[in-house]
């Protein structure tokens, strides 16, 4: 933590970064996103296992971009998000700096290539803080539990989950991959997904969201943290991520090259349901 504060101070003092986006003490014992612009404020940075928000969400916001070059304190899932955003042409190489903390050391990753290298070599997936790869054990168990249910029960489970949705879009707002300035739910000629928080409206919203994130979700899990009514919607995208990894060998967020599983195909893709 001290190393991180020191690094942040140096970056700001040396004008290598205009803002350090990191975590600070929040309310209720939570950590929160902080935007450090003065070197003497760097001492308020923290980094521990309360720091769960995916800060990459701020990198694509115009208000944050207008502050100047940003250095972002990056958990492994944040690093992967940066690469995925890069692969989708949402970030410019060299304009974003990631501060990765590993074994008490702070690494300045100033290019996408450096992030790629770090993720693919320096981080042993099992030892990385936060979620590096795949589902957490808890989520995996939750997915397995749902899969073990009879179909009708699965349906009831999700209908019940979706019925709480008020369409506040906190899931969308908290997700760094939901960067579209005009979301599909805002396409209203015709109104493709119903805006109202009704049964079908909610079902369609969560399904379309899951599909749009399939193969792009980085498993940071912040959508479910953000949801004020605790809908387990991360399970949808994470299950798909697992599935896509298994079926097509594609895993999001390990390269800045464009490799989106659902915009590619192989003639030998396997399925067992088309007659």
């Amino acid at each position, binding site marked *: 933590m001290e190393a991180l504060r020191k690094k942040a101070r140096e970056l700001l003092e040396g004008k290598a970064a205009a803002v350090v986006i990191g975590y600070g003490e*929040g*309310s*209720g014992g*939570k*950590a*929160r*996103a*902080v*935007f450090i612009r003065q070197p003497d404020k760097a001492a308020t940075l923290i980094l521990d296992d309360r720091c769960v*928000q995916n800060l990459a*969400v*701020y990198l694509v*916001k*115009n*208000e*944050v971009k207008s502050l100047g070059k940003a250095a972002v304190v990056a958990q492994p899932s944040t690093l992967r998000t940066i690469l995925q955003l890069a692969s989708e042409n949402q970030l410019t190489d060299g304009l974003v700096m990631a501060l990765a903390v590993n074994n008490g050391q702070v690494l300045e990753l100033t290019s996408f290539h450096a992030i790629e290298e770090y993720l693919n070599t320096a981080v042993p997936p099992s030892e990385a803080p936060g979620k590096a790869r795949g589902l957490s054990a808890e989520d995996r168990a939750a997915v397995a539990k749902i899969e073990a249910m009879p179909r009708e029960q699965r349906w009831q489970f999700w209908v019940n989950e979706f019925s*709480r949705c*008020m*369409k*506040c*879009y*906190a899931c*969308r*707002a*908290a997700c760094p991959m939901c960067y579209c300035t005009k979301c599909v739910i*805002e396409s209203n000629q015709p*109104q493709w997904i*119903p*805006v*109202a*928080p*009704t049964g079908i409206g909610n079902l369609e919203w969560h399904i379309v969201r899951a599909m749009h994130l399939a193969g792009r979700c980085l498993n940071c899990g*912040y959508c479910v*943290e*953000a949801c*004020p*009514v*605790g809908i387990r919607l991360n399970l949808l995208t994470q299950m798909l991520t697992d599935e896509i990894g298994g079926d097509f060998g594609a895993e999001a967020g390990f390269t800045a090259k464009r490799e989106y599983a659902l915009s590619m195909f192989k003639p030998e893709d396997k399925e067992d349901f088309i007659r």
Partner: protein
Amino acid sequence: MEKKILKKQSLGALFDAIKAGGRRLLGPVEKDGRTTYEEVSSPAELAKDYIQTTTSAKSVVFPACEEIVRWQNEGHDVKVADLKPQTTPTVVFGVRPCDAASFAILDSVFSWDYNDEFFRRRLENTTIIGLACTKSDEYCFCTSVELNPGDTRGSDLLLTPIDGEQYLVEIVTDKGKKLVDAAAKLFTPAGNESKEKVLAKVPVKFDQKKLTAKLPALFPKENAWVDQSLACLGCGACAFVCPACVCFDIQDESGRNGGTRLRCWDSCGFSLFTLHTSGHNPRPVQSQRWRQRIMHKFSYFPERLSHLGCVGCGRCSRACPADMNLVEHLSALVEAADGQ
């Protein structure tokens, strides 16, 4: 105000009496770490230990989505139904005083010159049994917005658990009186029991009078608003859990033969809230939308409707995915005003 005593063990009998009248009874129920108002039939179902429900009681009178117009297509003609709000007489048990007070705020907007029948009928059909707070958390700030943990305003009956065995019942309105009369034998006259000693101690966190007075002068300080709202993600969580947020959207949904027009919750924090069809957006950036939220509740509301648009329940801060703490921001604004 007439006061009675109700034994905690009589609560079940009171619930029975309420439901016997054909009324729907809602109460706070805990499930998966959240507390929400659900239909209940016995006190055993109630959440034992809650400071605040996750979502407010607002939806009882102002549902997240309500049908306001319905029509049927008949060839080239359209038959528009005269839709009457369908409401079941409802009793909501365990409403915290802050939530109870929010109904007056909603009412002031929904009855402002034009009477919203949907809201009014629901409100008329709703009886609120308030439950005074004996505990609070760091997000609570009712005392900073002219309320208190034992406030009777907005409740029809206010219950205070004065000890482990009994509630002190304050009969606030005729509606409350009717409810007591329906189960008169459960209530005994109160002596000189006082609720003050059990009420939660909620410190005053900022000077609201000063805030309201200074906000117009703080409006043009763009940088201060940007600083406050950098972390804001622009979702509607704060507005949707807020018991006093009234803003709504009107949406049509139609099938082959007809359709409905729905009134759904909306939030001034969404970028689309003010977007014109032409593409012009009067509030194009998040800091302006954050400012609007604060100005509306703490400046415009008091000026136009003589009361605040906030009851200090603290839900917005609890729900915020970016931990935007309202009290913190309001205190900072008061401080900024001092610095002028």
